[in-house]
């Protein structure tokens, strides 16, 4: 049986009831538009909020922690099976904050296929000297290119450019710090490290993350500037930050390397578990609303097709009398439903995209989010394909039952009934 004839008949039936068909299609269009716009907007917000923390957080962070040595000398000497040792007042050993053998660690991390990128960091506790007052703070020595590539550092530099850090003795101040020490771009400020080294640094930019607590303390300089400030060699690194291809593999990755390198490894899930929960619940709600819209439009199609079948009983009877079997009739009505679904859905996807573009233009300025000027929208094609697939599935189901009813019409009943 040729589909061409089926489709031709379906088309003629739809054209005979253009208005009803259009209304059904508009129902689908509206729900797909809303579905796409809602998910795009919701997930845009989600990723913005998550990004506040998650973008800047390394998936796995390696560092040394100052803590008492777990292998105390006395344990080596006495037999713990039959003896008990009591040591009072154990102090942390004179270990460094720096990571031992950082070069070879970085090298082996780079060889791991799970790793997307590595950025190392030197953190230094400092005092910002303002006249006679010292403000405590932290200067992070970073590689500006790597930091921008992996952690979107440039998004948070509100004035100046991250690349200005490549000049020696320059610093990007946290906005809170800058406000407190009244430092403008181009000013030279003085910092003193915990070890007592003093260094004069030129302010080349401001950094604003949106988390005031963080911005009040932290500033950024290049790795070599901080190493110089601390009087350390250029192999001195306090943190190795790793970004993975698969964010979910972080705990396993941290476990793998924690023991090999004998250093601390924190993964993002452990550190920021609550963000995951929040975003997944928000997406769940938007999917639920979107799918409800689609189901409602499915009922619209169901009603309209049922009505169409009632009006077209004569046509169905004639078709059956001249040799169309039940499945042909079923196919005709399912084709009508699918045409409504596919056309309505396609227009809906386009309108949904346009709505997203519109939302993207709505101004949205907030103190906490310096880089955001308009509402965030996620254009992930995933939502478009889910919307498209769902529109086809719901219209198919909405068409299936009326079509089955049409296919079971007994032509004799109709012809005799006149």
């Amino acid at each position: 049986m040729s589909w061409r004839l089926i489709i031709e008949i379906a088309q003629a039936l739809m054209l005979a009831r253009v208005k009803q068909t259009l209304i059904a299609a508009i129902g689908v269009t509206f729900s797909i538009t809303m579905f796409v716009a809602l998910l795009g907007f919701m997930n845009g917000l989600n990723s913005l909020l998550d990004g506040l923390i998650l973008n800047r957080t390394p998936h796995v962070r390696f560092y040394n922690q100052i803590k008492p040595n777990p292998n105390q000398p006395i344990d080596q000497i006495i037999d713990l099976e039959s003896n008990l040792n009591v040591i009072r007042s154990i102090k942390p050993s004179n270990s460094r904050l720096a990571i031992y053998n950082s070069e070879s660690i970085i090298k082996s991390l780079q060889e791991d296929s799970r790793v997307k990128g590595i950025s190392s960091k030197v953190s230094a506790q400092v005092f910002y000297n303002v006249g006679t007052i010292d403000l405590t703070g932290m200067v992070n020595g970073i590689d500006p290119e790597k930091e921008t590539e992996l952690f979107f550092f440039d998004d948070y530099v509100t004035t100046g450019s991250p690349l200005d850090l490549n000049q020696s003795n320059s610093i990007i101040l946290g906005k809170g710090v800058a406000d407190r020490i009244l430092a403008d771009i181009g000013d030279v400020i003085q910092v003193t490290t915990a070890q007592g080294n003093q260094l004069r640094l030129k302010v080349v930019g401001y950094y604003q993350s949106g988390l005031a607590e963080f911005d009040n303390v932290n500033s950024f300089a290049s790795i070599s500037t901080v190493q110089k400030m601390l009087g350390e060699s250029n192999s001195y690194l306090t943190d190795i930050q790793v970004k993975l291809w698969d964010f979910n593999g972080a705990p396993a990755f941290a476990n793998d390397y924690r023991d090999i390198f004998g250093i601390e490894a924190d993964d993002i899930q452990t550190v920021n578990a609550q963000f995951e929960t929040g975003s997944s619940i928000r997406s769940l709600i938007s999917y639920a609303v979107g799918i409800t819209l689609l189901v409602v439009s499915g009922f619209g199609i169901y009603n309209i097709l049922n009505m169409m079948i009632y009006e077209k009983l004569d046509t169905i009877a004639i078709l059956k009398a001249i040799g169309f079997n039940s499945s042909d009739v079923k196919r005709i009505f399912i084709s009508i439903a699918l045409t409504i679904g596919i056309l309505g859905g396609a227009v809906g996807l386009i309108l949904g995209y346009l709505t997203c573009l519109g939302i993207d233009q709505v101004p949205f300025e907030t103190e906490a989010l310096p880089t955001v000027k308009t509402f965030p929208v996620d254009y992930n094609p995933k939502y478009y394909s889910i919307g498209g697939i769902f529109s086809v599935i719901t219209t198919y189901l909405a068409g299936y039952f009326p079509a089955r009813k049409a296919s079971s019409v007994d032509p004799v009943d109709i012809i005799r009934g006149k």
Partner: protein
Amino acid sequence: MTITKPVLEARNIDKFFYNPSKIQVLREVSFVINRGEFVSVVGKSGCGKSTLLYILSTMDTDYDGELLIDEESISGKPQNQLAKLRNEKIGFVFQFHYLLNEFSVLENVLIPGLKLGKYSREELEHRAMEKLKLFDMEEHALKKANQLSGGQKQRVAIARALINDPLIIMGDEPTGNLDKKNSDIVFSIFKELAQEFHQTMLIVTHDPEFAQGTDRIIEMEDGKVIRQ
């Protein structure tokens, strides 16, 4: 010409209606229609002639007895095969249900042909135009079906019944809803089909004039064939 070859044969067909109570509408109806015969079925209203026609047309399968079309028993065959058989071997002309209003006249004639799929679309269009010409309907070919008068619709319906060169044409009071002039035209078309094309036809009618013009009359009363 093998006049004696049976096209349609009914053997002891019984039919009951169960609603509201069990009533027998057809009693042991048996007859044979041979190739080329122009047969009319007459009888009073309610004698079961239309019911018989629906059974003969394979649309109603709820009966006892045996029905043979083209010397093949079709009783108890699945619906899909019956639909195919209707498409290929039977042409219908109804009293009220003429055409599909959503389509043009030409498309209405084409659809059973397209469904059968024996000829290409171009070939079928050519054939459809031929049939329409036969009934002087070719100038209306591109009109929508609902723009025609009753008589014109019925002529198109006959053209549609002919498109697949059916074994037999069945008509359910094809002139019943037409005025005198139009029913004369339709009758003359049937007559022409019988004489010139030797088309086998079985027409249910209550119009005695129509019946007189046919080769053979089957008369029914109370569900029984009383004369054939």
